[in-house]
């Protein structure tokens, strides 16, 4: 019986002209998004590799007066693109693509792609994720709003129910009838997606678990909308009401709620900098070069003279000023990392609130899950920034160490001496390699939105049982 209902529903759907239009639009958008995602991933990752190699080359070929000055010259590191960005670009456009690493300062991401494109892109970017999150639910609404309400208007509902059909079977049949046409679109699209992924990278197996979880997440999201559509259709007075209710739900949860949730996050866990009193508050300059720097240098010199049992600074085997640089790097790094941690902790609190509000709007939860699994959410940007920062610190200190162990009095003479070992010093610093965390790490940051999605799923399954059992017959 379930199958018969489903078959009838499928025939209905397949004959519907509106369905044809919806399917064609959706397919075109999906293919376009996939093509664009694939193209930009390939282009960007090639550029990223080239830029990263070029930076290493520039670093090795540097001509600096001494190792610390080389650290000032620094290098830029580029965040690698994940092949799943074909599907969802996440925050890529709104966080920069690179970080400049140098002595004394830990810098922010720079060059947000969104800065350099037309404002129209603020309407949203065409990605597979956008199609799946916004447009597929609309198609589901279109397929479900009349499921029961339409039959009621035609008078067939009473007849069907009089056959002694169990409401659960009826609902299952209807759900199946909606899902099959939907799968006819989604499965080919998913296969194409896998093909695009396979063509674009050799490490398909590494992203396999992520893909499985992504598919599962989106499936749950669609099931939520199918059940919601059926529930509303079962209870609504007529199909017009059902449609308006469902469209209203879509509008509020997919368009309005994300903005409200992000707003609320900023109001509760604000990241706006406090009003500045002096310039020093505001400038992100190193803080260690304060008035007592000279005094501390003197103190350190005295300690060292005693330790090495020599009379003058020139006799010391280590450089006092370089040791001070080493120490100030330590202190500055600590202070700046604290600031970074505070800021990102606030972001993550905001985002957790955003995810929790998914209880009212499943779109918030699926957006977080999708962004997280493709590796382009705040947690992943933080992960990269932290690795880059650690590399920066090691680089700066390694260069400082060279200066500590080669004390000098004559800047120019030292410069000539430095040139002979310069390249060896740079080569002793391993190139920056970013290791993207594995899927378990990503999933660990997504427990909350996953719970929210599961709650929605359970809630909707219970609701559909209740609603269909108490369906309005006339």
């Amino acid at each position, binding site marked *: 019986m379930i199958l018969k209902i489903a078959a009838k529903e499928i025939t209905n759907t397949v004959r519907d002209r*509106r369905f044809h239009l919806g399917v064609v*639009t959706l397919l075109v958008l999906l293919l*376009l998004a996939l093509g664009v995602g694939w193209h930009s991933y390939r282009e960007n990752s090639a*550029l990223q590799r080239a*830029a990263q190699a*070029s*930076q290493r080359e*520039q670093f090795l070929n540097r*001509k600096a007066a001494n190792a610390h000055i080389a650290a*000032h*010259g620094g290098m*830029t590191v*580029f965040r690698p693109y994940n092949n799943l960005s074909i599907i969802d670009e996440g*925050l890529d*456009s709104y*966080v920069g*693509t*690179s970080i*400049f690493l*140098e002595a004394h300062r830990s810098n*922010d991401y*720079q*060059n*947000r*792609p969104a*800065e*350099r*494109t*037309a*404002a*129209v892109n*603020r*309407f*949203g*970017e*065409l990605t597979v994720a*956008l199609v799946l999150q916004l447009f597929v639910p609309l198609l589901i609404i279109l397929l479900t709003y009349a499921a029961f309400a339409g039959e009621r208007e035609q008078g067939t509902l009473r007849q069907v129910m009089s056959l002694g059909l169990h409401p659960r079977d009826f609902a299952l049949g209807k759900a199946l009838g909606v899902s099959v046409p939907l799968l006819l679109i989604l499965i080919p699209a998913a296969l194409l997606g896998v093909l695009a992924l396979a063509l674009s990278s050799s490490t398909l197996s590494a992203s396999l678990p992520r893909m499985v979880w992504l598919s599962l997440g989106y499936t749950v999201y669609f099931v939520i909308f199918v059940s919601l559509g059926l529930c509303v259709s079962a209870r609504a007075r007529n199909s*017009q009401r059902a*449609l*308006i209710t469902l469209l209203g739900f879509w509008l509020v949860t997919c368009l309005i709620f*994300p*903005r*409200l949730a*992000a*707003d609320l996050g*900023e109001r509760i866990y604000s*990241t*706006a*900098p406090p*009003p*500045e009193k*002096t*310039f020093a508050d*505001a*400038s*992100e300059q190193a803080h260690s070069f304060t008035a007592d720097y000279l005094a501390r240098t003197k103190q350190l010199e005295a300690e060292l003279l005693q330790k090495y049992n020599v009379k003058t600074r020139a006799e010391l085997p280590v450089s006092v000023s370089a040791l001070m640089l080493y120490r100030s790097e330590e202190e500055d790094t600590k202070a700046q990392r604290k600031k970074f941690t505070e800021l990102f902790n*606030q*972001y993550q609190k905001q985002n957790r609130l*955003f995810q929790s509000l998914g209880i009212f709007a499943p779109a918030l939860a699926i957006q977080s899950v999708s962004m997280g699994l493709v590796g382009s959410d*705040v947690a992943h940007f933080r992960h990269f920034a932290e690795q880059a920062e650690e590399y920066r610190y090691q680089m700066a200190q390694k260069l400082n160490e060279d200066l500590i162990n080669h004390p000098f009095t004559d800047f120019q003479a030292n410069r000539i001496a430095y040139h002979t070992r310069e390249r060896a010093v740079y080569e002793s610093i391993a190139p920056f390699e970013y290791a993207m965390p594995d899927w378990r790490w990503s999933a660990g940051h997504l427990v909350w939105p996953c719970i929210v999605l599961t709650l929605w799923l359970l809630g909707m399954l219970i609701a559909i049982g209740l609603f269909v059992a108490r369906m309005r017959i006339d």
Partner: protein
Amino acid sequence: MMKMEFLNKNLLRWQWRILRRERVVQIAVGLLLLACSYALFNGFTEANSQQRDVLASQAFQNALFDKTRQTLAAYEQKTPAEEGARAAPNAAATVRDELANFKAVLPPAPAAPLAVGQSDLYPQAYYYRKFNDDSPAQATVDGRSLSNVFPQKLTANPLRLLTGRFDLAFVLLYIFPLLIIALSFNLIAAEAESGTLALFLSQPVTLGTLVMSKTLIRFALVAVTAILFPALSVAFVGLFTRHGLSFWRLVIWSLAAAGYGIFWFALALYINNRRKSSVHNALTLAVGWLGIVIILPVITGLAAQIIFPVPSSLMIADKERAIRTEAQEKATHSTDLLRTNFAARFPPQPDEKAASPRLNTLRNSEYLSVPETDDLLSDYFRRHPEWKQHVTYSRMIFAIQQARDEYIEAQLFPLLEAAEKQRARQEAFVNVSGLLSPAIVLQKVLSDVAGTGATRHQNFVRQFDEYVRRRNQFFAARVFQGQPITSTEISDSLKFVFHEEGMSKLLQRVTWPLLLLLLLPVSLMVWGIRIYRKPSLTETRNLTH
């Protein structure tokens, strides 16, 4: 046959009475009012905090100026003997650095509460930091090429940038048309379905008049809610805040919003005229909304990026590092040459230190010529021939720093400019494609009028760059002339002031989009009404069944 008025006052009054009793209308208008109020509240808080930032940075700069002026005035009172050998605080390079640490804040946009625009994406303030040797290595952010200039850190959550803001522009672009659709998807279908339409048409009233009065009443209702109310609120608050009210901006804003509203009413009229069921009308209009407000803008953005691709930021960042390293190496080379030349002309006496008083005096008094082999300095003095005459060793060191910064700027500028040009081409393309979707046009007009679009920010950056260049020129000239700065010169003319663009420029920019937003919908509307003017008898009969 009696003459029928096109607009019937009685009809209007009755329509209003019916409309205001409807629950759906009450709820919809209430929600729209709520959304507008929340959006306005958001807009006002943001503008206020920006205004506080402006005031704080002005106060800081004033204090800095006062302090320097006092130092110089005190120094001017003293005789040279009293001052002794200490470095003069009025030397041009010293004063330049003394006045360096300040922040230029973009004042809140003239009608900022109307739209967040791109203001959350671009830094709203730039620091000019004290000159130091590390700065040429510092990376540019968001397309800046001048040394010592650093953007204020952006601390907004990127997720919030992605989702967009709940501002008045969002309400107008997305929610406003939905309200119009909700109010007008069954202008006649429901009356036809319930049979009251036939009754109506038996009166001396044409279908055209009926539809016209229905539309007019509805338009008045949404215009008051979503246009007049926000505009008056902004005007009212503007009267009591510092930067005051920008009347013409509000007028343009209202016109644009009205044009957008008329477009949706015209669309609804057209759909209604197809005489299908009210569900069908609602669905068609909803699909139209989806296409015009979501799909077309997204596709347009994509097309703009494909047709006018912006040079990759990865490439720019990589090249930038190479340019800065190269500039630093050139500067080192110039310094080496200078040092060798100086040592050749004034050989140090045995056991004399490099920083001996005798050599220091020579460094400040003896004029040197620029060596032919020094590309960096030769180029610099070719650009500034007037300074070439009196170049001492110390001034040469100063010139090397200046030349290095100018070199970086000259190399980096074309890269950034190319990216900016592509962005401008994208915007131009978007302007044309506005013919497809009024939402695209409205978005542009709203942020332009509010002053939160990319253009005003570009203006700010350009003006600030210009100011920094002028400032550098001023101090450099004084360094090369060896003329100290006097306390009377420390005046407001040395400060950065942002000049708001004139109305004529804004009008130039918004004329085309505004025309699109007004002419297209109004002509659609006129046509929409015309098709109702003379319904044939058969059509009317069809309608009533």
